[in-house]
């Protein structure tokens, strides 16, 4: 499933299939059993929980993954990472902490407690159906 670059989502986004985001998301993203790809055009201000997270765009917020976080060479992340495996490509921009000591998504509740407050606006909509605004 893709979220196109003209789409803006404010609220909570969750699901049980792999997802690629090219648009903007503010709030919270949960795909605990799936792959989340944050595409080159994406701008995310959210807490992110997924099985695997690939970042090619911009993320401001904490990322927690059960398996792996992969920040590609054009990726920009400002926030804390928690995952058993973290890969950061040459050229990527990162500021924050990296915790590879335990599971990521499995510890998401505690990770949420540690989250940077500025990255987490109040959910506009709770559930699997996000509030979406096409521009």
């Amino acid at each position, binding site marked *: 499933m893709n979220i196109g670059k003209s789409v803006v989502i404010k609220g909570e986004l969750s699901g049980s299939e792999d997802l690629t985001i090219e648009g903007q998301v503010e709030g919270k993203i949960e795909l605990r059993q799936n792959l989340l790809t944050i595409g080159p055009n994406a701008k995310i201000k959210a807490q992110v929980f997924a099985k695997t997270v690939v970042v090619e765009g911009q993320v401001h917020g904490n990322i927690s993954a059960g398996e792996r976080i992969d920040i590609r060479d054009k990726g920009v992340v400002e926030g804390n990472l928690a995952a058993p495996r973290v890969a950061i490509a040459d050229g990527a921009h990162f*500021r924050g902490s*990296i915790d590879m000591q335990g599971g990521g998504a499995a510890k998401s509740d505690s990770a949420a407690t540690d989250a940077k407050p500025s990255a987490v606006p109040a959910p506009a909509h709770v559930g699997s159906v996000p509030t979406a605004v096409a521009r």
Partner: protein
Amino acid sequence: MFSWGARSGEKSAPAQPAALIVESLSASRALPKFISALAVLPAPTLLDLGPVVGTNVSFFGERLSCKMVIEDLYEDIDAAARRGTTEGLAETLTGRITSAASGPIDGVLCWDIFDYLDRPTARALALSLRGALRPKGVLHGFFGTTSADLKHRTKFIVQSETSVKCRCEPGQTIHRTPLQSGEIARLFEGMNVVESVLLQSKTRESLFRLPG
């Protein structure tokens, strides 16, 4: 141009124009001791003041099972150089250390950050780092020993416990007035000098440890 000269027997990339990336390999005497000091801790926290290097994250993660905090202070230094003033830089850098070090820090990788700072800013940063360290915490840094206009930033890519690849990339020009070894010691007053060695690249590599 300032560069990390290779020791005899060390590989070095051929000379290239200043705008291009230049790499060299440098031996490290202090890094093994830095790692040893942290390896005895169950889950140390490491503060890295340089731009993020993915292979360093993997290296220290595997060796130390540590939590790493990346706080790239070079960005702020470059921004100050672009503005043409260091006014407020000390406050910015110490503020970043305060916010990055939400808990005690066991080890700090300073790389060559102090080469780009004037004396008052260097003192403020050193004080801030010392305050963030846990007792017995260690601090590693490189200090240039020659006066020079630095037109690059160096990315330090750890290859092994005893070797570091230095990759020079273009940056804002900043004049380096080198710190003498006595000044470096005073900068980290109250910490013990574990290692201080002058490398063939005319760079001093130092390791400090806070008493227990």
